């Protein structure tokens, strides 16, 4: 198993923080902005083909998540949310050859001496225009491919238990559990890339409702329902 896939339900934790800030350190918004830029300039977007950026990689939420799910699971919990982003994204730029670790270290040392030293200026305005346009248009997983859903509202379904892969869309606590189809979403949905455990190609998605006791028996609360959208590929075939 991969611990990152099994966060839902972990016991023995401290009370939850109710910190309402989005960025708890000022630097965090910079890595957020860089990630959004990468998504908006990702090579799979048709509109990017005419944009004068030197970025020519496929980069999506799936890629960011794959990095986080590929971490040593104990390290995963040592770092804050945007610390993981910074590690994953800077690692990607080094591994892909856009920057070298040496360049990054040298610049980091320089900014450690003076954090207020200005950033370089300039660049092609068309790059920023595309990134903002991406934010306005989005990148929907809805597909024009038709498929006959295997299940209908009210059907009892069993969640599959596929072996762990680099990036998974199935919350671990649901594996092997039974739920009831509450809604069949219209159309089909793909994922940015095949995950290797049944998701990627266009397929129906269901909203499936679980009684919390069917998942956690008596270590949950009364009168509690859990709703999860599940790709058809994660459900056992009907009998």
């Amino acid at each position, binding site marked *: 198993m991969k611990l990152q896939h099994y966060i839902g339900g*972990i016991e023995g934790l401290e009370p939850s923080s109710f910190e309402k*800030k989005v960025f708890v350190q000022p630097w965090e918004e910079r890595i957020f902005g860089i990630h959004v830029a990468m998504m908006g300039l990702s090579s799979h977007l048709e509109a990017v083909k005419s944009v004068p950026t030197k970025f020519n990689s496929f980069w999506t939420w799936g890629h960011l998540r794959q990095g986080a799910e590929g971490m040593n699971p104990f390290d995963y919990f040592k770092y804050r*949310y945007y610390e993981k982003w910074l590690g994953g994204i800077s690692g990607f730029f080094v591994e892909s050859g856009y920057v070298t670790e040496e360049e990054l270290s040298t610049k980091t040392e320089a900014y450690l001496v003076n954090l207020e030293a200005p950033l370089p200026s300039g660049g092609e305005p068309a790059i920023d225009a595309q990134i903002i346009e991406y934010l306005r248009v989005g990148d929907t997983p809805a597909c024009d491919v038709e498929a006959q859903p295997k299940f209908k509202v009210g059907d009892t379904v069993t969640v599959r238990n596929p072996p762990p892969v680099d990036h998974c869309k199935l919350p671990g606590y649901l594996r092997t559990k039974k739920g009831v189809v509450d809604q069949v979403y219209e159309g089909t949905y793909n994922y940015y890339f095949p995950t290797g455990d049944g998701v990627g190609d266009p397929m129906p*998605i269901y909203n499936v409702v679980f009684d*919390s006791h069917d998942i956690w028996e008596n270590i949950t609360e009364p009168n509690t329902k859990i709703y999860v959208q599940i790709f058809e590929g994660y459900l056992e075939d009907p009998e």
Partner: protein
Amino acid sequence: MTENVDRETYSAARVRALESLLIEKGIITGETVDKVIDFFEKDMGPFNGARIVAKAWVDPEFKERLLADTPSAIAELSFPRGMAGAEGENMAAVANTPEVHNLIVCTMCSCYPWPVLGLPPYWFKDPTFRARAIREPRKVLKEFGLDIDESKEVKVWDTSAQIRWFVLPERPDGTEGWTEEQLAAIVTPESMQGAAKVAVPA
């Protein structure tokens, strides 16, 4: 030198180094990150969700349309272009009622309906919240200051595929006759994730 540097200072320098190199190499521009942040400060944030909630409170037919087909109901209102953009491609609203309390969580990561709520707060991304909210939602909500009796059903929505959920909270007593603008001003991001009720300022 980096051996004895404070963790936050190091991250701040490292991300600045990365941004600086990406600008130099023509991947992004000197203004990219500021423009992205500006977009979420001005165009897409919880102020949009608050307006939607206020409208639903004063217009029962709009509320019905919002719950039946969230994107088209939102499209009726005048917002900046992009309400069906990034992380808003498939949004859906669920309503709190006297019988049902809804709580949104993304146990695997942090999916969030950007056009209506902006960016997710720290608590929503915290693995402790993600781990606990799905199994013991009332206990977590109590820590957040919200008591939900066991006689009320709790629905926890785990965002794991295409839908980005948000909650239509209950309109608080004492707001009769308020304008949409007055109502929108008291709707918080937390109330639109089911982590708090909307309160009337004393």
